[in-house]
């Protein structure tokens, strides 16, 4: 056993464990080669491409109004136009520029904040741990959307504050996951070994704990990406997201609620949300199935 003699080797083992599972080990295909994941990656890739090339690909200016209001889908306007005569296809394409990067921003910020607090809670323990965990309880005591709504409304409804609000409501999950990863590792031999070798707490955190807990955290983050898109769209639907006339999918669906007969106004942005969220969910599931054997049964 290398347990006490070589903490470095142990650490490397710990780090590779989850990478190895993603590659599929000896028994199955790598995660990124499975059919459903390929579909999800293709959809996401498509959306990313649309977002990057929105200016080139969108047939119209997403903000340009025209007298041709509520035009049904046609050869000119594939997805029709909204109440202000704006081209819905162009707005949907440009919407990808908001939703996808914002969801990434929300999740990475929440991961950063929650991860750091979780590391501190797990590693320091005692009073700090107790205080932080009660704080997560508090946040969990609200439905996410209600708390996010209150925070956004209080700070003033705009893009930045919506993102901020969603970070505030979503960091506790990461804090809990990272904390329990740290706690489960505190008893492990390689941390003790590191301590025996005189490795300081900060270095131990950075070199031992972080690489090992990052796997579960990434899985969670991927799973939460879809949720972030949904929550942001919901805030925006309620008029608490990016300010009009920004082409945001949630607010575009809200426009369609004004007149049900113009179904195309809300159907297409809704489908955009649906496909992006679904792709993120599939990706998250695939990662989780590999990394968390508890859920992988029967796959």
């Amino acid at each position, binding site marked *: 056993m290398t347990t006490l003699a070589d903490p470095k080797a142990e650490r490397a083992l710990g780090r590779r464990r989850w990478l190895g599972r993603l590659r599929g080990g000896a028994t199955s295909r790598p995660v990124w080669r499975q059919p459903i994941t390929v579909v999800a990656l293709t959809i996401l890739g498509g959306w990313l491409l649309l977002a990057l090339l929105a200016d080139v690909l969108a047939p119209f200016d997403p903000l340009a109004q025209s007298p041709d209001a509520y035009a049904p889908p046609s050869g000119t306007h594939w997805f029709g136009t909204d109440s202000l005569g704006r081209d819905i296809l162009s707005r949907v394409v440009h919407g990808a520029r908001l939703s996808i990067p914002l969801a990434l921003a929300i999740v990475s910020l929440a991961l950063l904040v929650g991860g750091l607090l979780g590391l501190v809670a797990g590693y320091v323990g005692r009073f700090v741990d107790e205080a932080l965990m009660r704080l997560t309880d508090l946040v969990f005591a609200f439905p996410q959307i209600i708390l996010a709504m209150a925070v956004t409304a209080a700070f003033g409804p705009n893009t930045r504050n919506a993102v901020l609000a969603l970070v505030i409501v979503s960091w506790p999950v990461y804090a809990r996951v990272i904390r329990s990863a740290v706690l489960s590792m505190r008893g492990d031999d390689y941390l003790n070994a590191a301590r025996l070798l005189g490795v300081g707490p900060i270095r131990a955190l950075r070199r031992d704990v972080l690489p090992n807990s990052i796997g579960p955290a990434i899985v969670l983050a991927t799973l939460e990406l879809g949720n972030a898109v949904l929550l942001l*769209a919901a805030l925006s639907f309620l008029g608490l997201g990016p300010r009009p006339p920004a082409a945001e999918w949630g607010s575009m669906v809200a426009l369609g609620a004004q007149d049900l007969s113009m179904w195309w106004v809300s*159907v297409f942005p809704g489908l955009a*949300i*649906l496909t992006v969220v679904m792709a993120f969910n599939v990706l998250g599931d695939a990662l989780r199935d590999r990394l968390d054997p508890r859920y992988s049964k*029967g796959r």
Partner: protein
Amino acid sequence: MTTVHDGEPGAVATTASRPRGAHPLLTFLAKRVAVTAGLLLGVTVVTFGLVNVVPGDPVTANLSDQALNDPAAVAAFREKWGLDQPLWAQYLHYLGNLLHGDLGHSQQTGRAVLDDLLHYVPATLELALPSMVLALLIGTGIGMLAAVRNGRLTDQLVRVGALLGLSTPPFWLSLVVLYVFFYQLGLAPSGGRLSTDFSPPPTVTGMYTIDAALAGQWDVAWDAAQHLSLPVLVLTSLTVAMLVRFVRSAMLEVLQQDYIRAAYAKGLPTRVVLRRHLLRAGLVPVVTVSGLAFASLLSGTVLVESIFGWPGVGQYAYRSATALDLPAILGVSLFVALVYTLVNLTVDLLYGLIDPRIRLS
């Protein structure tokens, strides 16, 4: 807990002898009440802090532009709501009132927050409760079916369906459902709790269907039920999607257990094994997740209520939040936190009911 040992003469399976003093259930409940009280206090601090520290000003949020230009009106508003006092004084004042059951007055509706809540909560419950019950029944059934048919077509379809449900924005699904069932098929009303030809039944529970039935006004009850149908459909499908995946993986895990194989090995018909052995064991994780499911259902309520014009807590919360109506926000927060705690308590008690290992220890 005593166990029986081999060869121990006259050894008997018994439950734990009760510890001296209080009944364990009472101790458990007392602890929970203390934790809940702490949590609720925390909720008031956070909400109070949030609304007061942030840049938004309730004065500008509530007064018209005209009134804002009149310093006397602004001062009157501040004085009326105690906004001229220091923050800690405001908070202590609020807490004092809270202990007397006074949640303050909503700046928006001008009514007591408690009255507002008593008006809006039953409307939300009338949506949430049937959705939850339906979702639990359907979700457990479908999840179990998928687990038993693991890997086959039924299972694949269920999994794709659940994925779709989880990825659908609730507000968009509400619109789609409205478009199909109201606009195209005309099968259900578009929103609200009652048609205009009816007046609400005499209040008993505040839930129109039940109150109307109690009063024997069957036409009103039917109308109220029709108004419930679409929002309940949306909330149920979203919650089912969430439940199905948990139920499926929980049941799959149970299906791998030796005691399920043992039940088959006894020659029991499949139906009995599934209904008695599988369902019983699979219910424990289902109960766990149902707390979570109820939380997500309440989140969905906010959006669904706003689309179906349903005068419930979700709408009230939305309007209070956008108006920075502090007493109302606090009231809603306390209510929501209380509901969450109650749900978790119910979940814990249900555990004991289902699993004898917990009940007896």
